[in-house]
């Protein structure tokens, strides 16, 4: 690494009184050299983003402010600079890109206007020169047809294109430091791979110092030169990426890395001869913008095209795909939350798709779902006990009996019985997901559909919830339809894998086979895009073939 470009010394950021801790960042010292990528890793609430904002002078003062310490950049102490000087540095010398490019870009201004605005603020270029330079940078971030892109509005671009435009905007003034706050978290895995490669290339070319904030050790393995690990606002470990990834010294880093699933499928289990529980035959779902009085019929979207799958008893089938691939729509068709347009959804030979809502009711009990968003999937105004007991009550179980069963279930998912009398907002994301699992199990289903059940959770919590799901599946002999975008997670829990793209299942088969020798080009592309795919850590959790009971 070169000499220190940015130096953070004993930085402390104070939170307002009444927050869950006194300091968002506590006694953190870090350096960022020229021409290196420093990854700051941590779970939510670790203070990593607050630290980045402190460097940019973008803390929400006066509620959150730097309490002590220094941030030195090129000989200047940033924390004591007047706002006018800080404005010069921001954008010109230190630039930042954000997680969600849709909200970081102004939706009513063209991309070109927003990029040239940066030049207008910091340089004396004329309009035509600024536009020419903007077009050059649009080309540098490998956006197709840069001129057309300049005239586009943010909503006309895809997520990856927007992030590229953000990067062009951040780099156009040639900053020496780039702070990237989870810039690929909102993107699909193949897009993420492209953006990571782009950041890496531009960083090499322009010899920028990049502080890259992430929660994902795969991303770290992909691009980091050095790593700093944060926990509860403190720096617990820092060092060269090679060393930290292969031999972490701090127990917290060790546990974080151990929680990242390796990209190795779980051991295959014999499934031949096991009866088929659920079979999908040519399931179709099309969304149409309806024609109205003054409106012509809009475009149609084939969310699911001719999907066929079989799920055996005890089997976990992973449906893998990027956003918009139709995987969640397919799951909702199976659970009859939405109605498929064609094909058959056969549960033990009965076609659920053609059942009337009344006839469907007893079958709802047998197919249950765990949802993605632990904050949105529980009714905020119901007590946890009522949430879990409601399903059985609706299906005719007496209230007392249903509540008694809820008490058993809450312990099965590893929560205390007292939880039943509390409201969802009193629980963390991981705990809420456990409640959601208990609700699904309350009806004693045969098929459990898990729609991205861990993608909103921190990696350590994610490992716990995955272990719980695997444990329950094996104990209760459930068939599980596991929807995920994360191949690492899929490798850990699935027996069979189906890969979806644009509503079609492009490949399916035993997990071991699909992982070892993906047949379809898209599957290969997906695997190639997994960040840190070649990185294997020695301490990884064993694949979840043999469940350990967890409390």
């Amino acid at each position, binding site marked *: 690494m070169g000499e220190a470009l940015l130096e953070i010394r004993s930085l402390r950021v104070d939170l307002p009184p009444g927050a869950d801790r006194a300091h968002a960042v506590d006694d953190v010292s870090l350096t960022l050299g020229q021409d290196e990528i420093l990854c700051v890793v941590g779970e939510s609430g670790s203070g990593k983003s607050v630290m980045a904002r402190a460097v940019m002078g973008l803390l929400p003062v006066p509620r959150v402010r730097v309490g002590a310490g220094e941030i030195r950049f090129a000989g200047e102490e940033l924390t004591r600079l007047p706002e006018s000087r800080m404005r010069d540095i921001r954008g010109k010398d230190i630039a930042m890109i954000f997680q969600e490019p849709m909200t970081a870009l102004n939706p009513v201004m063209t991309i070109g206007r927003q990029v040239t605005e940066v030049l207008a603020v910091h340089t004396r270029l004329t309009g035509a020169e600024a536009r020419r330079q903007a077009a050059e940078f649009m080309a540098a971030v490998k956006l197709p047809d840069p001129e057309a892109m300049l005239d586009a509005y943010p909503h006309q671009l895809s997520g990856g294109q927007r992030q590229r435009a953000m990067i062009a905007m951040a780099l156009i003034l040639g900053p020496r430091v780039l702070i990237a706050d989870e810039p690929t978290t909102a993107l699909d895995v193949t897009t993420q791979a492209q953006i990571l490669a782009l950041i890496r290339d531009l960083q090499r070319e322009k010899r920028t110092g990049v502080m890259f904030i992430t929660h994902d050790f795969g991303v770290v393995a992909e691009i980091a030169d050095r790593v700093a690990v944060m926990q509860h606002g403190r720096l617990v470990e820092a060092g060269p990426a090679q060393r930290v990834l292969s031999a972490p010294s701090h127990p917290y880093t060790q546990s974080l890395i151990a929680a990242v699933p390796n990209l190795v499928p779980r051991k295959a289990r014999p499934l031949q001869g096991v009866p088929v529980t659920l079979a999908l035959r040519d399931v179709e779902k099309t969304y149409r913008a309806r024609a109205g009085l003054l409106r012509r019929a809009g475009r149609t979207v084939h969310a699911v095209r001719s999907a066929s799958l079989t799920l055996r008893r005890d089997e976990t089938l992973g449906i893998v795909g990027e956003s918009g691939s139709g995987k969640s729509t397919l799951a909702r068709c199976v659970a009859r*939350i939405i109605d498929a347009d064609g094909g058959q959804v056969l549960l033990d030979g009965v076609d659920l798709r053609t059942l009337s809502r009344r006839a469907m009711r007893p079958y709802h009990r047998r197919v249950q779902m765990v*949802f993605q968003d632990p904050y949105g999937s*529980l009714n*905020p105004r119901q007590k946890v006990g009522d949430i879990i007991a409601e399903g059985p009550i*609706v*299906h005719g179980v007496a209230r007392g009996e249903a509540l008694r069963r809820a008490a058993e279930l809450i312990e099965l998912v590893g929560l205390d019985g007292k939880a039943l009398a509390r*409201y969802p907002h009193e629980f963390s994301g991981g705990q809420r997901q456990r409640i959601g699992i208990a609700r699904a199990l309350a009806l004693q289903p045969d098929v459990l559909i898990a729609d991205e059940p861990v993608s909103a959770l921190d990696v350590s919590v994610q490992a716990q919830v995955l272990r719980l799901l695997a444990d329950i599946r094996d104990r209760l002999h459930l068939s599980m339809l596991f929807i995920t975008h994360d191949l690492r997670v899929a490798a850990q829990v699935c027996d069979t894998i189906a890969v979806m793209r644009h509503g079609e299942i492009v490949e399916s088969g035993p997990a071991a086979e699909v992982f070892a020798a993906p047949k379809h080009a898209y599957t290969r592309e997906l695997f190639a895009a997994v960040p840190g795919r070649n990185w294997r850590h020695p301490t990884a959790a064993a694949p979840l073939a043999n469940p350990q009971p967890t409390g």
Partner: protein
Amino acid sequence: MSSTESSVGGFWRRFRRNRPAVFALGMLVAIVLVALLAPLAYPGDPFAIVARPFLPPFHDHLFGTDQLGRDVAAGIARGAMTSLLIGIVATVCAMLIGVVTGGAAGYFGGRTDVLLMRMTEAFQTIPAFIFAIVLVAILSPSLESTIIAIATVSWPPMTRLVRGEFLATKNREFVQACRSIGMSDARVILRHILPNCASPIIVTGSLMVATAILIESGLSFLGLGDANLMSWGYLIGAGRTVLRTAWWVCAFPGLAILLTVLSINLFGEGLNDALNPRLREAG
């Protein structure tokens, strides 16, 4: 989403922070007490002639007498019940209509939505007060027809609000979870969606009471109120011809309307802040 609002204590703590709202609540309690105690303080017919006409206020009679020698204070006190009763009953009726139509339109969508919303828009094209006058004129002035008229002209905004809330809530995952359990529509609506839309409905409802009282006063002012019931609007209407010589005949009932409507509005705002804490703290 409601984080800490589940407890009554938390609600009261947040409500208390809004000083004007607490003041308004005090005023409303006082107005309700006046309405309830009026028959004791001013027994007998408020239309009765009790003294010489045009007695100025703050002498023998608190608010003076009108051109027929009727006690203005008695009229205001006895009229309070009329205003409150009509305001509340008409609002409850309008809320019921609004929640049912808006809820059905938002939850079921499709044709139901189109049909109900076109109907709502049809009602909204007619100016509310004129529509109320027409209805009372057709139904002949009485307590019931005033309530019917006010309810008929006030439900459309409630329908639109409830529809919007239902649309936003029905796609939340917990509602999908209800459907995956196999719950009936009625149960999903009543037990899951409606409680989560309750705060804006309550707040809007409280503000609708104020509007209803204003419409009622307007109708009575034009002589379209119930002839046998004393009301604030009637007092103002009766006194308007003598406004320059006996200001108190109009002024005190007008003040009563002003204070009541203002209190209800301030209270409604306080309710909004206390029920939706995020909105306030985000700013």
